[in-house]
């Protein structure tokens, strides 16, 4: 495109605004310096300030390349901004993590349309600030701007992550009354949301009611079943998918392998793993190796799991090793755990969870000096334990708790319920274990 443009210039044809917009959007993906020179040229023609489309394209380009401050300068110079320019600016700020600026621009905007709201909400979702995303969605409802399917997908993603199935169900009903109710991407999002809220049956219903499905739909339902512990269903759908002519990809295999590991189907899992490359020609990625390590670990075959780690073509990451470490906990193999730990601390020096795991393993067998040592090491290295928190959704409100939390309004009822529970636990023969920390 750049070459073409040069030729055009040489031949003396004056570029118009369409030329610039096209060029700039090309530059956003590749060549920023060329983009800047185009900017300079456009400036000469005053296109950037007088033509809103060119200006907006410039904003988009700079924002995409991370130069959000430059984008802002261009944006401020645009004489007559339209809603697209505003939206692009919001998106630009969000894209670069400047949430406050984005909200500021949003507030300054003369008129907000669905896209503006979506840019803001989607931005929050992408920055993993889900609760704020939902708050803004509520604002959007209040200001009675009709959400479009992109908004809906962003909100569903937030629901999925927060596990707010109450709001998720509301969204589902909301969607049913909209013309985009059969949008495949929305259905996929619904499946994902339901399965990540643990309502796998609803996910299945959505899946079954879909008129058309994509690979993503299949992957979502397979992974959904697998992580929810319905190994048989996951594998059934994995087979069904191929019978319906879909070629499984890496994600499908992750789901199927997870299912195998869940059901303890070691041989089947290994076969799948092999076929993946041999029959389907899909390269094994580290998460697939992770599945196999998990598969072996679960079956108590720690040695085989080690072998996999040793022979896999890439360097193991802390997640794969952590998974084996967790297996050591389950099978009570402290010696192996201690050794693994040495390497893990090199690989992931700041990661607290593995230290905590080891400390809890020591505690479980009553090796208090060992546990103490781990604790000291953590202190020496300045590693803070990530505080554990749990949340529950009641009537579409999320209530969050940390250990020993006394801040909830109903704390008296909560604590007396806990006490009743613990006395009933003891009555049914439960013996509290020796867990030091909230995670392991």
């Amino acid at each position: 495109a750049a070459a073409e443009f040069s030729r055009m210039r040489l031949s003396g044809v004056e570029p118009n605004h369409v030329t610039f917009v096209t060029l700039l959007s090309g530059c956003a993906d590749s060549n920023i310096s060329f983009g800047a020179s185009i900017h300079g040229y456009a400036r000469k023609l005053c296109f950037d300030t007088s033509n809103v489309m060119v200006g907006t394209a410039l904003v988009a380009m700079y924002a995409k390349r991370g130069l959000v401050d430059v984008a802002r300068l261009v944006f401020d110079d645009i004489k007559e901004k339209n809603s697209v320019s505003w939206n692009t600016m919001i998106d630009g700020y969000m894209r670069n993590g400047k949430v406050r600026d984005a909200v500021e621009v949003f507030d300054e905007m003369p008129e907000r349309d669905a896209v503006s709201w979506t840019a803001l909400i989607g931005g929050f979702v992408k920055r993993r600030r889900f609760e704020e995303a939902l708050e803004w969605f509520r604002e959007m409802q209040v200001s009675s701007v009709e959400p479009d399917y992109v908004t809906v997908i962003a909100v569903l993603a937030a629901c999925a992550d927060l596990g707010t199935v109450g709001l998720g169900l509301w969204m589902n009903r909301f969607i049913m009354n909209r013309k985009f109710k059969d949008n495949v991407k929305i259905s996929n999002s619904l499946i994902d949301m339901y399965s990540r809220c643990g309502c796998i049956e609803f996910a299945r219903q959505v899946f079954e009611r879909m008129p058309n499905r994509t690979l993503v739909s299949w992957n979502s339902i397979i992974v959904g079943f697998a992580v929810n512990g319905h190994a048989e269903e996951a594998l059934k759908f994995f087979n069904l998918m191929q019978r319906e002519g879909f070629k499984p990809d890496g994600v499908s295999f992750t789901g199927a392998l997870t299912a195998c590991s869940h059901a303890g189907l070691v041989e089947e899992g290994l076969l799948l793993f092999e076929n993946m490359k041999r029959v389907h020609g899909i390269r094994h990625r580290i998460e697939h190796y992770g599945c196999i390590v998990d598969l072996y670990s679960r079956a108590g075959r720690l040695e085989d799991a080690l072998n996999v780690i040793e022979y896999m073509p890439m360097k193991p990451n802390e997640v794969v090793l952590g998974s084996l470490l967790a297996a050591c906990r389950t099978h009570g193999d402290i010696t192996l755990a201690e050794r693994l730990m040495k390497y893990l601390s090199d690989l992931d020096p700041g990661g607290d969870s593995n230290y905590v795991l080891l400390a809890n393993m020591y505690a479980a067998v009553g090796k208090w000096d060992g546990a103490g040592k781990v604790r000291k090491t953590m202190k020496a290295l300045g590693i803070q334990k990530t505080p554990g928190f749990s949340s529950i959704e009641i009537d579409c409100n999320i209530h969050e708790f940390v250990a020993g939390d006394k801040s909830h309004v109903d704390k008296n009822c909560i604590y007396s319920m806990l006490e009743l529970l613990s006395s009933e636990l003891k009555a049914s023969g439960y013996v509290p274990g020796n867990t030091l920390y909230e995670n392991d």
Partner: protein
Amino acid sequence: QITDVKLTSISDLRTLCREGKVKEAIELMDKEGVKADADCFCALFELCGKLKSLENAKRVHDFFLQSTWRGDLQLINKVIEMHGKCASMTDARRVFDHMADRSIDSWNLMINGYADNGLGDDGLQLFEQMREQGLKPDSRTFLALFSACGSADAVEEAFIHFDSMKTEYGISPELEHYLGILGVFGMCGHLNEAEEYIAKLPFEPTAVVWDALRDYARIHGDVDREDRAEELMVSLDPSKAVSNKIPTPPPKKRTAISMLDGKNRIIEYINPTLYKDDEKLKALAAMKDSGYVPDTRYVLHDIDQEAKEQALLYHSERLAIAYGLISTPARTPLRIIKNLRVCGDCHNAIKIMSKIVGRELIVRDNKRFHHFKDGKCSCGDYW
């Protein structure tokens, strides 16, 4: 012109009162400054009482205090009744204490209010004051009084008052009063005594009497008495027959009427302790008896105070579950999201909890899902 507007407004207000739209009526008085008349106030007091909404009750009361009707004894009594129905005897009492003069109804309503709100003792005390002031209770006062006795578990006092009603005040008891005494027995759970009281009534018990006994038997879960009372009630008033009633299964235990004391020789034939499959149960029972006490000292050895609190009971997932339990109906599943992996001890505890509380507990941690149900977890104890 102005009076015209006013007239429309008051008729609007009347319409709202008639239609039971309390909120709208309050709005109208608040925003438009429409003044309610006696009928409107009367209707509003009744509506607020029926809806048990203290907030509205207080607002309507405020308008009333600003109105020209504020000295109307009948209406003030209505206010007392309204507050009582809204379960605020404190407010009712304040109104009562402020009254320049009180009718016997004021006292009756107060005592009744205390009784209905489970504050029978306060009702009884108020009655004492009434007597101290030399007021003469009427027939309805005693009904209220019996109701207060029932609410305060005061069976003996009810009879003292019943006697004084005849001897001191010359009021001869009517059916309602007998029902009142029956209610004292019934509310206090003295069902046997209630039935014997019925047998001693100076008149043939009517269907209403048996109906009352049946209701009390239902409240206290005495199925046999309930059935008996119902049968007697229906025999007197066939129109009260309950269709498609589930027949009660026969009781297994009838020692009270069997006359075969000491003839039960089943012991010679059974020996429940010498069965092999009982060993497990016995072990469990033994453990229950010993009353397991967790030894926190050794769990907490070598760890600091912060960890101490977390160690056994108050992990965040347990707090979230406890809150979920008290906020939702029985047997509905709970979904908990946790940012870290669920710890082994909690995993174990939640498994058993799911059985104890009879719910599916779904925990999503940063690794995987755990569907706890009936004491088992979908992860198969590997996580």
